[in-house]
């Protein structure tokens, strides 16, 4: 199979590879497929990059690693980026991995919770991000509830906790946990975020830091060139891409490869809208949701004081996309 190589960039020899690190937001899943595809196809190497994927750690967020320079790039989300900006650890989104928000709050179907306002007084199992409470609360209020619930930060698998009835609802990506639940025959009630009064926004996204942008813009471009190729490939070669994810990820990460395929089948069409390049971000999305969050008083600085305004245009950039 003939590999395409970028014009003007001759395949560098092994010694000249620039090391790069990428911090994951979760254990490997189909949100990350494009990256693993590019790895499998040696597209990063072709760009002169030796990419190392840092293993996911529930103790250190990718935002922190990126803004502190311990990682060059990472996987984040719009609300995380807004919160980072508020607390003085700015990161920048340089590509939307999925074009529309597919995240949702879910409950067990057997719980009898059928609409968001029923979540009042229930227990939410979160992943410890500072913005969760605000978003969840807003959703409940939109449906006429009080927006009051119990918040537990879990260091354990949220779906396991849900199954064990220790918590009532969690926040997931439909394309991963949603599909996983379907395959396991778990019956869920799903409240999509964007169908419940929250403006659409990008999640997950690829992030980097202002330092990296200032110092290594060319490297970031090369990185995005390969990454973009990976996701474009994943849009069209569902099966192969899923297999590459399984092969490239650490051994044992996917005890059920069938899940990867099913998830990939769901997610590939969501990577980008028909006819649009992968990764592009619109100003509208970057104003709608963050504006809503600011208005709701959900964004606070590190001392806990609400922030009232913010320049959203510095939070994202399309300039590194090929």
């Amino acid at each position, binding site marked *: 199979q003939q590999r395409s190589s970028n014009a003007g960039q001759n395949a560098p020899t092994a010694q000249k590879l620039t090391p790069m690190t990428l911090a994951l937001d979760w254990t490997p899943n189909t949100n990350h497929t494009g990256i693993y595809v590019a790895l499998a196809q040696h597209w990063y190497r072709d760009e002169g990059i030796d990419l190392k994927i840092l293993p996911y750690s529930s103790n250190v967020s990718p935002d922190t690693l990126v803004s502190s320079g311990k990682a060059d790039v990472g996987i984040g989300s719009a609300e995380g980026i807004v919160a980072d900006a508020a607390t003085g650890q700015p990161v920048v989104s340089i590509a939307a991995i999925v074009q529309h928000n597919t995240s949702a709050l879910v409950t067990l179907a057997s719980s009898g919770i059928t609409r968001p306002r029923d979540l009042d007084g229930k227990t939410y199992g979160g992943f410890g991000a500072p913005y969760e409470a605000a978003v969840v609360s807003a959703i409940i209020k939109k449906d006429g509830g009080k927006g009051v619930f119990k918040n537990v930060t879990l260091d*354990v698998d949220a779906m396991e906790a849900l199954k064990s009835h*220790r918590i009532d609802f969690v926040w997931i990506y439909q394309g991963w946990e949603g599909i996983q639940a379907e395959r396991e025959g778990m019956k869920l009630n799903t409240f999509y975020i964007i169908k419940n009064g929250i403006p659409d926004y990008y999640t997950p996204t690829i992030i980097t830091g202002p330092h990296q942008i200032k110092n290594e813009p060319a490297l970031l471009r090369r990185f995005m060139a390969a990454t973009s190729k990976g996701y474009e490939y994943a849009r069209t070669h569902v099966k192969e891409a899923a297999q590459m994810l399984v092969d490239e990820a650490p051994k044992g990460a996917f005890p059920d490869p069938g899940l990867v395929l099913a998830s990939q089948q769901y997610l590939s069409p969501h990577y980008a809208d028909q006819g649009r390049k992968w990764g592009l971000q619109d100003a509208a999305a970057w104003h709608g949701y963050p504006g809503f969050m600011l208005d709701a008083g959900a964004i606070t600085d590190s001392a806990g004081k609400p922030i009232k305004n913010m320049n959203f245009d510095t939070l994202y950039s399309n300039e590194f996309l090929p």
Partner: protein
Amino acid sequence: MKLRWIASYGPAFVLAITLLALWELYVRAGLISATTLPMPTAIAQALFANWDIISVHTLQTLFETVIGLSVAILLGAGLAVLLDLSAWVRRAVYPLLVTSQTIPMVALAPLLVLWFGFDLGPKIIVVALYCFFPIAVACADGLMSTDPDLLKLLQSMRASRWEMLWLVRLPGAMPAFFSGLRIAATYSVTGAIFGEYVAAYQGLGIYMETSYNAHAVVLVFAAIVVTAVLSLLLFGFVSLIERIALPWQQEAQARFRLK
């Protein structure tokens, strides 16, 4: 007496202040970013400014610690008496106790949460698992180090096994028990915080995690300070109880010092 006791901590105090000052200067000089490592003064400020919230979490953690430690005392003392029953039991149980200490809590904690929920349960279990071992070992050592001649003496008086335990062995094991308890107390708060870190509604552990996620490293440090102080207070409290409960120990030590 009291004054001399306070004075004896003088050097530690001086050294601590010196180290803190160096730290402050290091950060102020810009050798490390204040968001990575906040200055001591900033930590103190943050601690005072957020004391209303922190105090609530502190009380929760203290509550868990005290309950967990109580369970550990019961468990530890019970195991000590069990270990003491016979050499056979000892040889059977002791290696398993040591093994229990080699199980990484970090892997067990999530399972504990799934099995026992987010309430007090798992935290108490974690604290108890952390703390029972030094108590059991010290206490068993104390029981077993009873002078065998003393037991002979009681046997010659026709004392029952129970009377030997009650009159001679348990009182003799008290100093060992307290030194085990002191170690356990030092580690107990850390245990509770670890338990909270895995999943909790409230407590210093969860406060650290949320502060950390909100990039408020200074608050994480404030919570660390509270943890350390809490641990040291607990340590001191155990020592105080020991002084009150074992007045004779006091004299024996004073005598020893004189020599």
